[in-house]
C-alpha cells in the first residue's frame, strides 16, 4: 500500500481498518432461489407501478413494474416463474413495503436479451437512446444511493458537463463487490464508460480507486490504454474517499455546493459507481435489464467470506448460508459497510438493486459502547469532511435549538459517521444530527406545503 503521490480530499476524514476479507474471492453465481421477493421501490423516488398480478407467469428480465415518473425506476423480474402474490415485505429500512413474491420455475429469459459472454464494443445508440435504454433497464445508483441513473445521463441543458467520475473507491471497510467487479469485468466497465461519455457528450472520464486495490488499479490502467479519454486515479486510503463530494474534490479540486441544492453537476461532474457502469453496459450492449448484482457477504467470523452474483429479490438468509452459515456469535447483520450500512432485524430481507454487501458482526462488536461526557477534544470537528462541528450540532439538537442547528449547517451533513467513529467518549453524535436533520426537513416540507 503505497501512499505516495495519490490524490485525496483535504479536509477531515478517518482511517478505519479495511478488513477486506473477501478481496481475493472470485464472484460466484448462486443457484437460483426457490422464491424471490422483489420490492416495488428499490430506488429514490416514486415506487414503480405493478404491471403483473398474482398467478401471472413471468420471464427473467420481463418488466413487472413501471417507473412512476421521471425520478423513479422500472422493475424487472429477476427470475422466471409464477407470481404467487403481491405482499407487504420488510425491506432493509425495516418497514414493510409492497413486493412481488415470485415462485421460481426454470430460468426462462424474456426475448431479446443477449446472454452470451462476448464483449460488444461498438456503441450504436444515440445519446438520447442511451438514456432511454438506461431508464428502460431500471438502472439506479448501485453504490447504495439508488438514484435513478437515466436522470443523471440526461442533465438539464443549462448545466455544462465536463467530467465523468467513476467511483471505484469502495472506502467502506469489508466490502469488495466493486473491487471484484473491476477485476472481473474490466473491459465491460470501459465500454460502459464509453457509453456514458457518449450519452453525456463529453470525452473525459476519471476512475477513482483507493490505493488498497493495486491489482484493480493496474488492471484498469492497462485496459484503459485501449479506450480514449479514461484515466485511472489511485486515491489515498482515507474514509470517506468514495463520498461524492470527496471524490470530486480529490480528482478535480472542485467543491460541490452544500445540499439540498448542490449536486456534482453544479461543478461540471457526473458521478457513477462502477457497478452502475457495468449495469449500463449490460443494458445498452446486451439489452439486459438490472436484475442481478454483486453482493459481498463478510464478517470477522464468517466461514467463507464471499462475493456472489445475486438475483434481485433473493433473501439475504440464502447468501449467508452460501457463505458458510450464520456464525453462532452473530450480534448484528448489516446491509452495507460498517460506516454507513443499515442494521437489519432479521436476515429475511431481499437483496435489492442497492445492496452492496452483507456484514455479519459478532456480539462483541454489535453493541454500542457506553456514552461518556463530551471532553471537547474537537476530534469530531477535525474528522468532519464537511467542516461541521458535530459536538455543537448534537448539543443544539439535544436542546431543541433547531434554528441555530440549521444556521450551523446541520443540513450539510452527509452522514458519513466520521464524527461518531472518532469520538473518544462514544457519543452518538450522528444519531442526534440525523434526528435534527429529519425534524428540520419535516418542518421545511410542511412550510413548503402551506
Amino acid at each position, binding site marked *: 500500500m503505497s501512499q505516495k503521490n495519490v490524490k485525496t480530499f483535504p479536509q477531515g476524514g478517518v482511517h*478505519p481498518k479495511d478488513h477486506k476479507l473477501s478481496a481475493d474471492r472470485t464472484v460466484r453465481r448462486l443457484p437460483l432461489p426457490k422464491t424471490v421477493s422483489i420490492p416495488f421501490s428499490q430506488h429514490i423516488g416514486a415506487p414503480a407501478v405493478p404491471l403483473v398480478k398474482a398467478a401471472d407467469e413471468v420471464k427473467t428480465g420481463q418488466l413487472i413494474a413501471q417507473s412512476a415518473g421521471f425520478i423513479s425506476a422500472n422493475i424487472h423480474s429477476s427470475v422466471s416463474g409464477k407470481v404467487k402474490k403481491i405482499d407487504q415485505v420488510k425491506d432493509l429500512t425495516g418497514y414493510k413495503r409492497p413486493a412481488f413474491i415470485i415462485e421460481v420455475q426454470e430460468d426462462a429469459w424474456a426475448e431479446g436479451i443477449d446472454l452470451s459472454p462476448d464483449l460488444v464494443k461498438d456503441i450504436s445508440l444515440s445519446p438520447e437512446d442511451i438514456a432511454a435504454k438506461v431508464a428502460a433497464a431500471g438502472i439506479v445508483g448501485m453504490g447504495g444511493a439508488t438514484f435513478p441513473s437515466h436522470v443523471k445521463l440526461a442533465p438539464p441543458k443549462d448545466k455544462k458537463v465536463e467530467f465523468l467520475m467513476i467511483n471505484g473507491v469502495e472506502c467502506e471497510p469489508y466490502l469488495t463487490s466493486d473491487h471484484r467487479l473491476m477485476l472481473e469485468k474490466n473491459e465491460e466497465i470501459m465500454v460502459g464508460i464509453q457509453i456514458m461519455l457518449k450519452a453525456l457528450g463529453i470525452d473525459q472520464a476519471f476512475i477513482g480507486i483507493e490505493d488498497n486495490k493495486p491489482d484493480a488499479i493496474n488492471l484498469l490502467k492497462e485496459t484503459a490504454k485501449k479506450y480514449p479519454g479514461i484515466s485511472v486515479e489511485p486515491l489515498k486510503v482515507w474514509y470517506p474517499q468514495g463520498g461524492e463530494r470527496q471524490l470530486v474534490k480529490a480528482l478535480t479540486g472542485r467543491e460541490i455546493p*452544500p445540499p439540498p441544492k448542490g449536486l456534482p453537476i453544479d461543478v461540471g461532474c457526473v458521478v457513477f459507481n462502477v457497478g452502475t457502469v457495468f449495469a449500463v453496459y449490460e443494458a445498452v450492449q446486451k439489452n439486459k435489464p438490472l436484475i442481478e448484482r454483486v453482493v459481498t457477504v463478510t464478517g470477522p467470523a464468517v466461514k467463507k467470506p464471499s462475493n456472489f452474483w445475486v438475483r434481485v429479490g433473493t433473501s439475504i438468509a440464502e447468501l449467508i448460508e452460501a457463505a458458510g452459515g450464520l456464525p453462532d456469535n452473530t450480534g448484528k447483520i448489516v446491509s452495507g459497510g460498517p460506516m454507513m450500512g443499515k442494521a437489519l*432485524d432479521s436476515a429475511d430481507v431481499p437483496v435489492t438493486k442497492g445492496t452492496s454487501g452483507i456484514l455479519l458482526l459478532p456480539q462483541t462488536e454489535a453493541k454500542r459502547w457506553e456514552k461518556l461526557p463530551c471532553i471537547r477534544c474537537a476530534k469530531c470537528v477535525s474528522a468532519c469532511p464537511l*467542516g461541521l462541528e458535530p459536538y455543537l450540532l448534537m448539543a443544539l439538537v439535544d436542546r431543541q435549538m433547531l434554528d441555530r442547528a440549521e444556521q450551523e449547517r446541520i443540513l450539510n451533513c452527509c452522514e458519513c459517521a466520521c464524527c461518531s467513529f472518532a469520538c473518544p467518549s*462514544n457519543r452518538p453524535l450522528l444519531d442526534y444530527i*440525523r434526528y435534527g436533520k429529519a425534524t428540520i426537513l419535516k418542518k421545511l416540507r410542511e412550510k413548503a406545503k402551506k
Partner: protein
Amino acid sequence: MSSQLLTVSLSPHTYGGETVKKLMSGVLIALLPAWIVSVIVFGLAAVKVSVLAVASAVLFEYLIQKYVLKVDPSVTDGSAALTGLLLAFNVPATLPGWIVVLGSFVAIAVGKMSFGGLGNNPFNPALVGRVFLLVSFPVAMTTWPKPFSGAMAVADGITTATPLAVIKEGLKNGQTPQELLAELPGYSDLLLGKMAGSLGEISALALILGGLFLIYKRIITWHIPVAVIGSTAVFSGLLWLVHPDQFMDPVFHLLTGGLLLGAFFMATDYVTSPMTPKGMLIFGAGIGILTVTIRVFGAYPEGMSFAILIMNAFVPLINRTCKPRRFGE
C-alpha cells in the same frame, strides 16, 4: 432462520478505538520526562508532592461524585489524576503537603466538579488550584528550593529565586539584562532544568519532548503550542529589539517560567480550549501576548497561569466566531 437476538442500531457500526482513558494516559506519559527531571533535580520532595496531589485529586473527585453528586464515580478515566499531576507540576517541589492537598481540593471541587465535572468546567482546574494557592499562600508558593539540595532544602534555608523573579527584581533596581543574565544559569542549564522553579516546569527539553509526543500521537494538534510559543517569541522579541537594555530576549522568555509547560500541557487542555484550528491559533496567540505583558509590565514575575485562565474565559466567544471551513461554501 435463527432465534438469535440481533442488535439494531444506526450507523456507524464500528469505533475508531480512541477512548478518554487512552487520551488521558497519553498525556500522563508525555509528562513523564519532565517529572523524571524534577525528581533528579528536587529529589524525593518532588515525588511526595506529585503523589499527594494525584492521590488527593482522585480521592476528592471520587468522594464528590459518590456522596455529593451521587453519580457513579468516573475517576478511572484518568482526568482527575492528570489534574492532580499538573497541579503538582505548577507548585514548588517543597510545598508543604497540606497546602498541596488544599490546592487539589480547590482544583477538583471548585475548578471542576462545581461546574458539573469532566467536560463542563470553563477554566483549567489545575490552574484554578494553582492560582488559589498563589494568592492564598504567596510566601510558600514562591519559596523555591535550590536545585540539587535535597528534600530539606527549604527547611535548611537553601532557597533561591527563579530566573523570572531575579529579572523582575533586578530590572526594577536598574540592572541591565546583561548583568542579570550573568548571575543566572546559562541557557543550556535552563534547557536541561538546572534552575529554580515549579516542580514540572524547569526542563524545557523534557517538556518539548513530551509535547512532541502529544502531537505525534495526535492527542493534541500543533496549533495551540505553536501559537503560544510563536506569539511569545514575536512579542518579547519586538520589545527586545526596540530596547535590548530594558527587556529580556525571546529565548529567555521561552525557556523560563511555565511557558513551555503551559504551551504544551495546560493551554491544550481539551475542555478549556477552542474547538477549531483557527480558534486555537487565536487562543494561543492571546496567551503568549498576555504572558509577556504580565511578565514585563505586571506585578508578578510569571504570567502563564493568569494568561491561560483569562483566555479560557474567551473560549465560548472564540468558538462562536471561529468556524471551521465549511466545505462547498
